[in-house]
C-alpha cells in the first residue's frame, strides 16, 4: 500500500502533466496508484513502478483527456462541483452572505412589486381583439382665458354621422353615463338599488369590445330600446339564482328595461366599468327626448373602430372636417387609442380614474434604482470579501486550478446567490401581495408565468453578470505568488478614487434624493389637505339625493333646521369636493364667457361660510331671487365688469339644456363672492355663476354645530330622513373627509415614496455595515498601530467617519440640485403649491449622516477597543 507522500507524488505528477479537473485527477490518482502497487508487488521499486505506470505517452494522453472532458461534459459536471463549492463558500462567509441575501431580496422584491404595478397599469384595455384599431373621440376646446379644456366627452350624433361619411370607419359605439348614481328597481324582489355603474351603449358594444357575454346574442342584446345587459354580479344581486333573461328592471321611476343578456363581470383592467348596460336607443324614446339630436350637447363617449391600415392622423383630420359644419368652431377632435386611455392621465369627464406615463416612468426609475442599490451592495461586499479570499484563490491555483476555472467558480457563486435571492423574493412577493394590493388600493393583476420566468432569468443574469463579473475577473487574474504573499491586493478603500467609493456615493445619492423628495411631497400633501379653499368644510355633511319630491325635501330641510344641533341646510347640484361644474355661455351687457355653473339654494353661502365681496346672498325675502345670480370674483373681469360693486344688479343670462330642450334664463347679479375652490388644487379657481334651480339639486348639505359629536347628529338626521323617505336609503359623507379623499393619489404617492426611501436606506445601511465590518478587519493593523501611537477610540471613529461624510457631501452636491428640479416640476402640476425650503435639502443630509453614524459606530468602536496586541501580534 502506498504511503500518503507517495500518493501526493503521484498526484503532483498528474497535475504537472496537465490534469486540472479535480474529479478526473482523483480518479487518475487512484488508477495510477493501483498500477504502481501492482508493479511494486512484482518487485519494482516505487520510482521504477511510477515511471512505468506514468510514462510520457500516458502523460500526454491524460492532458488530452483533461481537455476533452472540458469540452465533452460541457462544463455541466464542473458547474455541479462549482455549485457545491459555491454553497460551501457562501456558508463559510455567513455574515456577508446574509447581508447580500437580505439586500438582494429587498431590492428584487421591491422591483418585482413595481414591475407588477407597471404591468397592471399598462395592461388596460389590451384584451379587446380590435384594441390596436379602436379609438375614443376626445375634444380640445380653447377657453376664453386661453386655457385648453380637454374632455372625454363628444356629441351623440357624431358617431353615426362619422360611420356614414368616413370610409375608414368600421364600427362605432356611443356610451352615456350619468355622473351620479341612478336608481334601479327589480320588480321580482321589490328591491331598490343605487347604481353608479349603469351605462347606455349602442348595439355594436359587444362587437367592438371583447367582453364575454354569458347569455344572449351579442348582435341583438342591445338592438332594441329598453333592453339591458347585466353583469353576473348584478344578476345575483337582483335575481338571486333565477335566470334573469326576460326579467324586468325599473330605471328611475318609470322606464321599464328587459334583461336580454348577462355579461361576465368586466375585467379590472378595463377603463370601462359597468354593472348594467342599457341600450342606447332607450335615450330619446323613453327619456331625454329633445337632447339626443343636439350636436353640441357633449355628454357622451364615442368609440370608433377604424380600418387597421388607416392613417390615424389623416383619419383624425378627416373626422374634423366631417364634423366641422355641425359643431362649435373652437372644438378640436382628437383620436385617442383605447389602449392609451388609462395611461394618458385624466381628461375632464373620464369614466374612471387614470394614471399617466410620467407616474409609470417614475415608478420604473425608482424600481431600477432600488435594484441597482442592492446590486451595488453586492458588488461592494463581494469585493471587500475578495480581499480575504485572495489567499484561498492562491491555494486553489497551486492545486492546479486555471484562470477560467477560478472565474467560473466566482461566477457560479454569484449565480447561486442571485437565483436564491430571486426565488426568496418571488415567494416573499406572493406572500405580501394581498397587503400590497390593500396598501395601493389596487387589484394588481399578475402577469402570465412566462413573463415572471423571463423576468427571473433576466434578473438573475443581470445580477450575476454585474456583480459577479468584476470580482471574478479580478480573482481569476490574481497571480499565485502575489496571492499567497498577499501583495497584489491593496485595500481599495485606501485609494482617493475607487469604484467602491463611487458606488457608495451612488447609494448616498439615492438616499438623499429620495428623502428630499419625500419631505417636499409630504409638505405639499399636507398643504393640499389643510389649505384654505375659501369655504368651510368642517362640520358639514353631504347627503346625495335620489328623491324628486321637492315638497318633502323642503319639509325635511325645515325639520333639520329646527334641530338645535343643526345650523344651516343647503341644496346643491354638485358635491363640494372634486366635482366638475356644468359649463354654460353667460352673457352680460358688455361681454360673454363660458363659465362654471352651480345650482344652489338660499342658505348655500351660510352653510359653507363663503364670504361676500359685494351685494347680498340669495334670500327668501326676495321672491325674484329664483331668477337671480351670484358670481365669483374670477367671473367679474370676464363679464366685463370693472369691480365687484360694478357687477351688482347687472343683468346676466345663459342658455342651457334640460329634458324639454334648450331654455334661456336671465336675471340680475345680486352678489359677488370671494373665489372658493372645490374642484381641485391642481387647477386654478375658475370663474363661476350660481343660481337657484330646485330640480337640478342632487345634494343636501347640512352644517351642524361643531361642538356636537358628528355621530349623534348624523343619527338624528337619519331618523328624520327615514320618517320622510322610508323607502330611500340614507347615505352621507363628511365634506371634509371627501375633500381629503380627492388627494388620495398624492397621499398614495407620499406613502409609496416613504416606503422606498426606507428600503433604500435599509439597503444602504446593510451595505455600509458590511463594508465597515470588512474595513475594520482589513485595517486592523492600522487601527492597532494608531492605538499604540496614542490615538483614542474617538479619534479612530472620526478617521473612519470622515471618509463617509466626504462621500455624503459629494453625493449631495451631485443629487440635490437635480432632485430640486424634478420635485419642482411635480409641484408645478399644482396650481397651488408649497415652495422648496432650505430644510427640505439640508434635513436629508442630517438623516443620512445620522444613519451612517448609527450603523458604523458600533463596529468601529468594537474594533478600536480590541487589544492592539491581537491585531499586531501576527506580525
Amino acid at each position, binding site marked *: 500500500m502506498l504511503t500518503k507522500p507517495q500518493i501526493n507524488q503521484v498526484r503532483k505528477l498528474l497535475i504537472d502533466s496537465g490534469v486540472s479537473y479535480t474529479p478526473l485527477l*482523483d480518479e487518475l490518482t*487512484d488508477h495510477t496508484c*493501483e498500477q504502481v502497487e501492482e508493479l511494486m508487488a512484482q518487485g519494482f521499486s516505487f520510482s521504477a513502478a511510477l515511471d512505468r505506470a506514468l510514462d510520457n505517452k500516458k502523460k500526454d494522453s*491524460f492532458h488530452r*483527456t483533461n481537455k*476533452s*472532458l472540458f469540452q465533452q461534459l460541457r462544463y455541466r*459536471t464542473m458547474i455541479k462541483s462549482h455549485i457545491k463549492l459555491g454553497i460551501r463558500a457562501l456558508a463559510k462567509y455567513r455574515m456577508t452572505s446574509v447581508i447580500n441575501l437580505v439586500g438582494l431580496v429587498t431590492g428584487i422584491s421591491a422591483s418585482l412589486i413595481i414591475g407588477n404595478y407597471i404591468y397592471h397599469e399598462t395592461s388596460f384595455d389590451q384584451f379587446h381583439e380590435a384594441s390596436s384599431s379602436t379609438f375614443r373621440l376626445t375634444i380640445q376646446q380653447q377657453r376664453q382665458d386661453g386655457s385648453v379644456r380637454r374632455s372625454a366627452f363628444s356629441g351623440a350624433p357624431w358617431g353615426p354621422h362619422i360611420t356614414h361619411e368616413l370610409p375608414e370607419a368600421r364600427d362605432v359605439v356611443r356610451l352615456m353615463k350619468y355622473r351620479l348614481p341612478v336608481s334601479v328597481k327589480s320588480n321580482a324582489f321589490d328591491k331598490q338599488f343605487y347604481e353608479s355603474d349603469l351605462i347606455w351603449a349602442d348595439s355594436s358594444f359587444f362587437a367592438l369590445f371583447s367582453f364575454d357575454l354569458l347569455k344572449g346574442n351579442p348582435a341583438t342584446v342591445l338592438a332594441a330600446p329598453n333592453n339591458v345587459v347585466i353583469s353576473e354580479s348584478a344578476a345575483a344581486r337582483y335575481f338571486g339564482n333565477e335566470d334573469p333573461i326576460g326579467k324586468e328592471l325599473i330605471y328611475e321611476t318609470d322606464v321599464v328595461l328587459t334583461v336580454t343578456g348577462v355579461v361576465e363581470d368586466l375585467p379590472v383592467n378595463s377603463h370601462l366599468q359597468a354593472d348594467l348596460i342599457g341600450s342606447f336607443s332607450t335615450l330619446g324614446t323613453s327619456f331625454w327626448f329633445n337632447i339626443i339630436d343636439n350636436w353640441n350637447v357633449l355628454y357622451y363617449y364615442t368609440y370608433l373602430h377604424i380600418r387597421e391600415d388607416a392613417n390615424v392622423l389623416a383619419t383624425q383630420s378627416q373626422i374634423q372636417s366631417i364634423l366641422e359644419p355641425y359643431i362649435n368652431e373652437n372644438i378640436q377632435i382628437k383620436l385617442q387609442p383605447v389602449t392609451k386611455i388609462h395611461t394618458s392621465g385624466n381628461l375632464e369627464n373620464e369614466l374612471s380614474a387614470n394614471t399617466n406615463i410620467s407616474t409609470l416612468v417614475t415608478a420604473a426609475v425608482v424600481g431600477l434604482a432600488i435594484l441597482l442599490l442592492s446590486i451595488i451592495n453586492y458588488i461592494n461586499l463581494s469585493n471587500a470579501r475578495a480581499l480575504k479570499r485572495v489567499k484561498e484563490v492562491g491555494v486553489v491555483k497551486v492545486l492546479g486550478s486555471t484562470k477560467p476555472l477560478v472565474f467560473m467558480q466566482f461566477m457560479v457563486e454569484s449565480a447561486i446567490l442571485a437565483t436564491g435571492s430571486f426565488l426568496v423574493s418571488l415567494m416573499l412577493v406572493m406572500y405580501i401581495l394581498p397587503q400590497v394590493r390593500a396598501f395601493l388600493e389596487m387589484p394588481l393583476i399578475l402577469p402570465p408565468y412566462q413573463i415572471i420566468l423571463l423576468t427571473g432569468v433576466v434578473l438573475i443574469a443581470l445580477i450575476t453578470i454585474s456583480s459577479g463579473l468584476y470580482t471574478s475577473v479580478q480573482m481569476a487574474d490574481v497571480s499565485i505568488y502575489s496571492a499567497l504573499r498577499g501583495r497584489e491586493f491593496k485595500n481599495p478603500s485606501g485609494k482617493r478614487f475607487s469604484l467602491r467609493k463611487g458606488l457608495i456615493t451612488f447609494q448616498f445619492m439615492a438616499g438623499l434624493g429620495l428623502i428630499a423628495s419625500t419631505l417636499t411631497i409630504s409638505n405639499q400633501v399636507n398643504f393640499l389637505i389643510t389649505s384654505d379653499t375659501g369655504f368651510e368644510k368642517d362640520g358639514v355633511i353631504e347627503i346625495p339625493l335620489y328623491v324628486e319630491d321637492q315638497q318633502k325635501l323642503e319639509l325635511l330641510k325645515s325639520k333639520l333646521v329646527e334641530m338645535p344641533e343643526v345650523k344651516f341646510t343647503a341644496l346643491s347640484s354638485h358635491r363640494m369636493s372634486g366635482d366638475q361644474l356644468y359649463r354654460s355661455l353667460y352673457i352680460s351687457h358688455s361681454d360673454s364667457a363660458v363659465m362654471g355653473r352651480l345650482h344652489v339654494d338660499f342658505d348655500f353661502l351660510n352653510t359653507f361660510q363663503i364670504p361676500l365681496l359685494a351685494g347680498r346672498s340669495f334670500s327668501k325675502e326676495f321672491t325674484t331671487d329664483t331668477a337671480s345670480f351670484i358670481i365669483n370674483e374670477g367671473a367679474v373681469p370676464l363679464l366685463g365688469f370693472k369691480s365687484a360693486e360694478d357687477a351688482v344688479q347687472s343683468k346676466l343670462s345663459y342658455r342651457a339644456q334640460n329634458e324639454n330642450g334648450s331654455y334661456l334664463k336671465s336675471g340680475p347679479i345680486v352678489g359677488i363672492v370671494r373665489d372658493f375652490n372645490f374642484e381641485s388644487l391642481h387647477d386654478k379657481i375658475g370663474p363661476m355663476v350660481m343660481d337657484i334651480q330646485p330640480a337640478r339639486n342632487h345634494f343636501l348639505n347640512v352644517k351642524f354645530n361643531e361642538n356636537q359629536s358628528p355621530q349623534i347628529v348624523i343619527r338624528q338626521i337619519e331618523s328624520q330622513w327615514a320618517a320622510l323617505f322610508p323607502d330611500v336609503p340614507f347615505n352621507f359623507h363628511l365634506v371634509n373627509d371627501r375633500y381629503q379623499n380627492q388627494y388620495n393619489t398624492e397621499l398614495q404617492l407620499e406613502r409609496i415614496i416613504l416606503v422606498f426611501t426606507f428600503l433604500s436606506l435599509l439597503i444602504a445601511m446593510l451595505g455600509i455595515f458590511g463594508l465597515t465590518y470588512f474595513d475594520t478587519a482589513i485595517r486592523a493593523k492600522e487601527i492597532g498601530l494608531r492605538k499604540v501611537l496614542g490615538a483614542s477610540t474617538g479619534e479612530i471613529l472620526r478617521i473612519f467617519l470622515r471618509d463617509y461624510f466626504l462621500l455624503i457631501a459629494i453625493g449631495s452636491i451631485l443629487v440635490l440640485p437635480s432632485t430640486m428640479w424634478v420635485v419642482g416640476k411635480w409641484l408645478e402640476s399644482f396650481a397651488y403649491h408649497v415652495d422648496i425650503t432650505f430644510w427640505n435639502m439640508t434635513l436629508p443630509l442630517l438623516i443620512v449622516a445620522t444613519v451612517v453614524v448609527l450603523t458604523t459606530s458600533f463596529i468601529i468602536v468594537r474594533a478600536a477597543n480590541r487589544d492592539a496586541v491581537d491585531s499586531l501580534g501576527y506580525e
Partner: protein
Amino acid sequence: MNKFDPQLIRGIYPALILKLLKGNAALYGYEIEKKIRVLSQSGLTITEGSLYPILHKLEEKGFIKSKIRQVKNRDRKYYSITKRGMAEYDTKEAEILSIYDSVVRFLGT
C-alpha cells in the same frame, strides 16, 4: 489474442461497461479496465484516456451513478448501474447484435 483496431470498437465500450456494471455491485475505474482486459482475453483494452470520459458521460446521462469512498489513503470512486442504465444496456445489446448479424450477413454474401 490479437488486439483490435480501437477505431472499430470505440462505439461498443459504453455497452461493455454497462454490461460489467450490470453483473457487479460497484466497480472503480481500474477494476473496470482490468475486467475488460481479462474477460476479453486481452482482445479489448481500454486506455484511461478513453475510460474516464466514457464513465463521466454515462454518469451525466444518468445511466450509472457513483460514490466516493476512502480506500488506502485515497479517494476511490465506485460506479454502479442505474435502472435507466439497465434499460439502456438492453437496447444497446440488441443493437450491437443486430449490427453483428447484418455485418456477418453482408460479409457472407
